[in-house]
């Protein structure tokens, strides 16, 4: 082989080597770039079991469906954009929910008809805590809360949603009040606004018929 032919072959090999280096470096950069972390996905990631149950991860959170494809659990942002944990029964109805509704924390338990039966939350105006129990009509029947004046109170309500009895306290002293169906106070016991401590019983017109101490 002549020296000229040899030089020509070497030149071809050198050009090929440069191309290979460029390709290899490109592949290396690609692998390095994608090896740091999987690229964010814009579509949901779904894990499905043989039973048909599935878990779906979207940008809004994680949704778990049972084999009947009913949503049983959601953790993430709900359809209103509220952070939420929702647990649903086998019919797909939400039975328990812990969420932030307009940034206020709420824990709710629902009956099978979807009625709110027990709740624990912070009030929207004062951020005071409240625990309430409701009947099947979603009428308030019992509540333990801190009221708008900052006083702690336990209240019991009739089926009309009106308070029948409440036990509360300010810093001077507590008081217990019992009302009848018409909301007339019939019994007061404890510390009165003037500082007196006692008990009185009133008739249906709200007039005291017995009081102690005199």
């Amino acid at each position: 082989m002549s020296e000229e032919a040899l030089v020509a072959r070497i030149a071809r090999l050198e050009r090929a080597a440069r191309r290979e280096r460029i390709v290899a470096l490109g592949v290396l950069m690609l692998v390095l770039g994608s090896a740091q972390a999987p690229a964010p996905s814009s579509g949901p990631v779904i894990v499905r079991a043989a039973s048909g149950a599935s878990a779906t991860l979207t940008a809004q959170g994680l949704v778990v469906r049972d084999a009947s494809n009913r949503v049983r659990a959601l953790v993430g942002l709900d359809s209103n954009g509220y952070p939420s944990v929702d647990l649903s029964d086998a019919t797909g109805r939400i039975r328990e929910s812990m969420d932030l509704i307009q940034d206020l924390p709420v824990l709710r338990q629902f009956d099978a008809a979807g009625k709110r039966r027990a709740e624990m939350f912070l009030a929207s105006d004062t951020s005071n805590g409240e625990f309430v129990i409701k009947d099947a009509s979603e009428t308030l029947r019992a509540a333990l809360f801190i009221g708008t004046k900052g006083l702690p109170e336990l209240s019991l309500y009739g089926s009309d949603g009106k308070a029948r009895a409440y036990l509360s306290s300010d810093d001077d002293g507590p008081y217990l009040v019992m009302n009848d169906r018409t909301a007339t106070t019939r019994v007061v016991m404890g510390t009165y606004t003037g500082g007196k401590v006692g008990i009185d019983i009133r008739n249906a017109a709200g007039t005291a018929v017995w009081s102690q101490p005199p």
Partner: protein
Amino acid sequence: MERSSDPDPAVRVARLEASRLLSRAVVAGVAILAFATAQTSSGGSTSAPIVVRDASGASATLTAQGVTVRDAAGNRRMFAGVDSDGFPSVDLSDAKGQLRQSMYLLPGLADNGSKVEFPILRQFDANGKRRAEMRLDVAQDGELLLNDASETIRAALFRTKGGDPQLGLYGTDAKLRAFFSTDDDSPYLVMRDRGGTNRVYAGGYTDGSIGMAIRNAANVVVWKAP
């Protein structure tokens, strides 16, 4: 200038040999890296977080610790998993990223000295103050607590150390003002003034009798029945 213009063929051959070695090293490195970071398509296991992002910028990230959801502004709004302290936890945060509701297990010691994890649900106001709480206490009894904006307890429903259920109402000084409780014999209601003196008592007495008494600020009975 082209490197191939080097007139010495021996030098150019040596350079080619070195280049080949380099190329082999690069290929081997890429292969090792690809194997090390490969994600299985059927096993469902990965060591790297899985991130799902939508057009708004909101995202959900699944890691070995749990799932975290961030809103379009990048604020963490929801976390469910094992938190940075190692506690199983579900945290909900408001639009400012402030934690507002948290349900978790907190390790501690029970009253018998054994290590237990206490379930707690806490609701926080916008200032991060604990305002409502439901949990198991050191005796593993359930209790519901309501605090004011200063985190001072104002109402509580719980079991006493003796095991009796009790509702307590507290003043702004966190001192008990009223409590309604019962033992197996009978219930009782006690009302106290600012000084901690019992002013009203109604219900069962320790001697088994049932009645009612009102006392003055000096703790002297001013009326009693029967």
